[in-house]
Every structure is written in C-alpha cells, then in structure tokens.
C-alpha cells in the first residue's frame, strides 16, 4: 500500500503505517487523518508532537498508561486521562496517533 | 520447603554460567545441571574441585538422560545426585522458584 501526499508517493504497510519513518511530514499526518475522516485540531497535534518527541528521546512509543501520565504532566491534568485521548483518537491513542505520528505500529502484545 | 532451584545448561569449559550461578546460589539452595552443563558433573576435570567445593553449600543434581546421552554416566562425581525428568519436575515443585542461568 502507499499514501500520496503533495504528488509524492510513500510506502505504507497494509494498515497504513509508514514503512519508512523518514517519510513523515505534517502533510503526511494530515492526509492519513483525512482518509480516516478526521481533521487534525491543535489538540490532535499536541499528542502527535508529544509522541514524536517521546520516540526521539527513548526510541519507543509509550504505552497508553505512560502516554496518559506523561501528557498530564506536560500538557495539564485535564488532558492526562484516557477519556480525553480516546475522544481525540477513537481508534485508540496507541494505534491511531502513532500512525499519524509516523511511529511503528504497536505490536499489541498484551 | 527449600529455596531456589538454579538450572545451568552450559559446559563449564566454554561458559562462565555455572561459575556465576555458584557465586549466587545461597546456602541450602539447589543447582540442577542439564544439557551441556552435565559435563561439570564429571570427575578429574579442571572444574571438579570447584564443583566439590560448591557441594559443601548447595545440593547439586545432574539430569541423567543428559549425562547418559553424553557418555558421562560412569564419571559422575560423588555427591552429585542424578535425576530423570520426573525428578526434575519434583525439584521444581519442591523449591520456591526456579532460576535458569542461560
């Protein structure tokens, strides 16, 4: 599968995750969201940017529990709960936000 | 009930696993030699003295099917007890936890 953004074609896996992390751009994220009928608000971007920074720092995508706690610490307690994150990302903050952030697909190991 | 059962599966001539295990195995715990670690149970080897020293603190077992497969059955050090797989199971049950020194 591929995703087309601004005339450029990028390879994704069967579920739409970028094959190469370096292909990511804000436009790629927006296009992925558009295909899911989702428009990225500032609140969405906060989470995406947070995930990208977390990955750059630790080389892993945080577990939801960890994401929730860390978001609360960084962006305020009102955002540090799973209800808030699931409202933004109804398919699951792990799966959906990671995809838009260009991070590897969570292996769903539980 | 006795304490920890340690299992070691590497030849003492190639790996430090047994040596390390014996460093941590506390008084009264047990060490079971399986797979290539059964070579450590043989007499007249370069490690036999260390093994005999260890016998003063811990009980050593060797898995008989592994001993026999390697032709070591007539060379086993006094004090090392042989068990079969059912004996292995009994040892697991008799100890509080099992730690594999991989």
């Amino acid at each position, binding site marked *: 599968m591929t995703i087309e953004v601004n005339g450029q074609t990028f390879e994704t896996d069967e579920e739409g995750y970028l094959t190469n992390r370096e292909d990511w751009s804000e436009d790629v994220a927006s296009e992925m969201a558009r295909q899911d009928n989702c428009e990225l608000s500032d609140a969405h971007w906060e989470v995406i940017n947070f995930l990208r920074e977390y990955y750059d720092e630790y080389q*892993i995508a945080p577990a939801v529990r960890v994401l929730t706690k860390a978001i609360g610490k960084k962006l305020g307690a009102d955002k540090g709960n799973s209800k808030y994150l699931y409202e933004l990302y109804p398919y699951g903050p792990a799966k959906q936000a990671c995809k838009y952030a260009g991070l590897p697909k969570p292996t769903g190991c539980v | 009930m006795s304490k920890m059962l340690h299992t070691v599966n590497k030849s003492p001539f190639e790996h*430090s696993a047994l040596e390390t295990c014996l460093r941590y195995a506390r008084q009264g715990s047990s060490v079971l030699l399986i797979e290539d670690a059964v070579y450590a149970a043989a007499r007249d080897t370069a490690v036999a003295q260390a093994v005999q020293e260890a016998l003063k603190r811990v009980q050593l077992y060797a898995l008989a099917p592994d001993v026999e497969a390697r032709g070591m059955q007539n060379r086993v050090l006094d004090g090392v007890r042989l068990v079969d797989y059912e004996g292995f199971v009994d040892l697991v049950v008799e100890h509080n936890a099992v730690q594999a020194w991989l």
Partner: protein
Amino acid sequence: MEEEAGAGGKVKKFLYVNRKAPYGTIYALESLEVVLIGAAFEQDVSLAFIGDGVYQLTKGQDTKALGVKNFSPAFRALDDYDVNKLYVDEASLRARGLSAEDLLVPVEVVSTERMAEIMEGQDVVLSF
C-alpha cells in the same frame, strides 16, 4: 505500546535477569520488550544486570553504522513505566572497567551477597 492493561489482582515478585550484551544477540532487546509490556500488569518488578548484561546499560551506544536500532535510550523510559528497581552487580561492573557513572540510568550497585538475597526473594525469575 498496547491499548489495554491487564491486572489480575495477584501481585508477584518478578525478576528479569539480564546476562547478555546487546547487539551480538537479540536477547537484550527482546528482554526489554517483555519488561515494557509486563509493566502494564502492575507486578513487583526488579531488573538484575549481571556479567555482560551490564553492557546493556552503558552510555554512548551508537548503532548508526550497524544499521540496527539503538534501544538503549528506552532504559531511560523505564521510570515512566514504574520500573525503577534496577540492580547491577558490582563485581561484574568492576571486571569490565566500569562504574555507575558509565551507565545510562540510575541503578543500585549491589554486592554478590545482596544480589543473591534479591534473587532468593523472587516468585518468578525470567532469564534471557
């Protein structure tokens, strides 16, 4: 990263024993993956680093030229996962010319005797 956490009520003492160096084999990486997933189960988790396992924690790992992922930064995330009991064997460090300052994360450097005591108190020992 997983969507849900499982907690069965029982809390056991889990010890992960790391005795292998990173990169030469996959054991160190896949051990860390178990720790990260296992953290969701809210058990009493400790990590032990013995022998070449201490090399997993050394600063300055740079895998760019290998073309493999450098997973050492993930050890710094363990605190976020409430995994904060990291025990490093003093003799193993010393034998390798290392000290706690050479490690990526704060750890408790322990004697062989203390490490043996920690091991003895566990319910489940996972070795890699």
